[in-house]
């Protein structure tokens, strides 16, 4: 009901009284405005309240969600397909054909909470019965001296776990463990190395490599980004097994203390087999020798192929000859002075058993007959500086780049100064020491046509790129000489029908710790390649202190010890590598030129 601004009654009354009627209108207008203002104010404050409520709700929602996210345990999105991949803690190691060399197994560790134990004394006794290596008294002491946590065993077999279950003490608890398993036992033990536990917790323990490839490739094996992809080695399981079998047989037959064999692919640099004897079981790795005076080589853990740094003897001669040919100083038919003994300053260089192959000998015969004096004269033509550079290019001055933790530590022993007498002795493999692995890599360069490639234990996809160290022609000439060593030289037992073995023998006296050399302790090496016409593999066999007693007199030269072992190895291994023998047929049909 709208009130008029100028109600007639009031206006008339005011006029009668002589007042201004406009005042009344004014009053009414003010009143009306007042009402309107109040209405607007209420509406505005209601709207503001609504807005504040909306904002408040939004803030509360965000706040609650943030609080929830901060306080709750993060959960992986379950619905995604990625979650289905349960990745093992440590990747497997397989051979080149994918056969398992090292894998993981889940077992349990045993620990105790002595405070929860019902009968610590009885439990300790029963545990000692299950595990004969535990001492009941010591265990009881550890259970009762007030500590609240005791590790009992790092890994248990399922049978042992069942027996511990049957003790039934509430203080004995199991924690899951992933352990490393080497299903092939001693096979390739020196390559694989071993494992141990790193940081240990109740629910899991770190598995870390302690030696060999396991330690050298530890980061790769534990890298979650690799997604548990197995590490493929270049080794071939069956070849490795055969090489180990023949090596063990050879060591027994030749009465040797130990030995090593390395088989390498000359085009890729892959090591197909690497054996060292005596060996060990990586599942139960023996402890290293504690005695400081003990020879490291006496431990089965010693990898002779990589760590056995010895003077390699006459196997070095081919390097001096190859370099002289590369420099154009000699060719295979050049006659060199080989008049023994040779006198150089106060040194006398003699031949084996005081022979004299001189006065002159062709370069080819120097290698075939293994003449120290002939090689010495060739080395003197080359000179110390060039000799050092050449040996350096063949990798003899650096540790081998093999993927083993032992490899970088086994540095070759290089004389500090290099006078001419060192040039002479080095030319026939004395004075500087290197490992059989060095020798394998250097012979690979001769075998593949003059390219030095780095040896590797990882499977390669194609031929390796290397550095050319000698021309193809020189490499071929050198191979011909090495072939002559087998056909009519010191390695006649090395002939394997159909496989054209070429190689060089080396017999080096063992150095005494106190200085000087042993009279009747030798290291015998046979460095070989096959087939000689187009070599595919290099095989190095080294025997430590062998004596061949099969003949009428004991013999210690490589031709009688390492060579027959290597020949047997080639005979057994080559078929496994798919290498077919070249058979010369007795009466092959021959074609004669004819005209009709």
């Amino acid at each position: 009901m709208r009130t008029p601004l100028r109600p007639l009654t009031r206006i008339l009354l005011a006029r009668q009284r002589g007042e201004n009627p406009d005042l009344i209108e004014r009053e009414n207008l003010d009143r009306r405005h007042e009402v309107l203002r109040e209405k607007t104010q209420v509406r505005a404050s209601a709207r503001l309240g609504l807005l504040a409520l909306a904002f408040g709700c939004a803030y509360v929602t965000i706040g609650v969600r943030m609080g929830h996210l901060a306080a709750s345990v993060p959960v992986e999105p379950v619905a995604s397909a990625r979650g289905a991949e349960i990745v093992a803690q440590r990747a497997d190691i397989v051979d080149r054909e994918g056969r398992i060399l090292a894998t993981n197994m889940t077992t349990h560790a045993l620990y105790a909470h002595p405070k929860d134990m019902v009968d610590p004394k009885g439990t300790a006794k029963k545990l000692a019965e299950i595990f004969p290596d535990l001492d009941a008294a010591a265990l009881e002491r550890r259970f009762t001296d007030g500590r609240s946590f005791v590790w009992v065993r790092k890994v248990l077999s399922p049978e042992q776990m069942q027996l511990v279950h049957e003790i039934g003490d509430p203080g004995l608890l199991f924690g899951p463990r992933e352990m490393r398993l080497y299903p092939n036992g001693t096979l390739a033990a020196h390559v694989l190395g071993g494992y141990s536990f790193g940081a240990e917790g109740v629910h899991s323990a770190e598995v870390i490599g302690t030696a060999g490839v396991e330690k050298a490739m530890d980061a790769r094996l534990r890298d979650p980004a690799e997604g548990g992809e197995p590490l493929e080695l270049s080794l071939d399981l069956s070849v490795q097994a055969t090489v180990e079998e023949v090596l063990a047989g050879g060591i027994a037959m030749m009465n040797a203390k130990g030995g090593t064999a390395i088989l390498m692919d000359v085009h890729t640099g892959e090591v197909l087999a690497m054996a060292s004897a005596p060996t060990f079981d990586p599942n139960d790795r023996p402890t290293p020798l504690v005695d400081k005076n003990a020879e490291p080589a006496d431990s089965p853990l010693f990898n002779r192929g990589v760590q056995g740094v010895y003077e390699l003897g006459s196997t070095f001669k081919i390097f001096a000859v190859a370099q002289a040919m590369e420099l154009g100083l000699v060719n295979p038919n050049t006659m060199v002075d080989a008049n023994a003994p040779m006198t150089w300053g106060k040194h006398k260089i003699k031949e084996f058993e005081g022979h004299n192959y001189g006065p002159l000998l062709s370069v080819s015969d120097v290698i075939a007959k293994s003449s120290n004096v002939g090689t010495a004269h060739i080395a003197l033509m080359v000179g110390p500086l060039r000799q050092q550079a050449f040996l350096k290019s063949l990798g003899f001055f650096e540790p081998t780049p093999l993927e083993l933790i032992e490899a970088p530590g086994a540095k070759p022993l290089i004389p500090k100064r290099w006078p001419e007498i060192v040039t002479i002795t080095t030319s026939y493999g004395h004075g500087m020491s290197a490992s059989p692995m060095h020798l394998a890599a250097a012979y690979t360069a001769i075998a593949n046509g003059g390219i030095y490639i780095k040896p590797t234990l990882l499977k390669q996809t194609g031929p390796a790129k290397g550095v050319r160290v000698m021309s193809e022609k020189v490499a071929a000439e050198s191979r011909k000489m090495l072939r002559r060593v087998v056909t009519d030289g010191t390695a006649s037992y090395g002939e394997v029908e159909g496989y054209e073995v070429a190689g060089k023998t080396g017999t080096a006296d063992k150095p005494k710790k106190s200085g000087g050399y042993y009279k009747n302790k030798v290291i015998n090496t046979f460095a070989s390649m096959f087939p000689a016409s187009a070599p595919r593999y290099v095989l190095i066999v080294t025997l430590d202190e062998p004596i061949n007693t099969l003949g009428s007199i004991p013999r210690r030269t490589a031709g009688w010890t390492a060579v027959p072992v290597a020949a047997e190895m080639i005979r057994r291994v080559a078929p496994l590598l798919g290498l077919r023998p070249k058979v010369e047929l007795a009466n092959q049909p021959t074609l004669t030129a004819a005209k009709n």
Partner: protein
Amino acid sequence: MRPVLYVLTFLAVIALGFWAYRENYATQASLREVRGLQNEIADLRESLSVQRAEWAYLNRPDRLRELATLNFDTLGLLPMEPGQFVAADQVAYPAPEIPAITAPVDVQGETSAAAAAPAASEEGL
């Protein structure tokens, strides 16, 4: 018009609520199933790795060598040797199959003449 709209909206809200409820439970059931499957996959993977290890253990070269020696009578397995490689042209062709003689023919004559006859025909060629 308006009341109809209100009623329809209300019904729509109820229907959506019902749908959301069902979806929620279906999702939870699926998640539970996925979790179960993942546990099963993990178990299977573990047993697979154990069986792979077992396979590798049973096929270790030492054991196979021993078994081959033990069972030499039945298997006759020997290490591979170079002598076992033969060129393809050295392998004898299988003997041609001679059809069974169903209708025997009696032949009479002198042996020397019989031997001479094919030789003569060869010369003719």
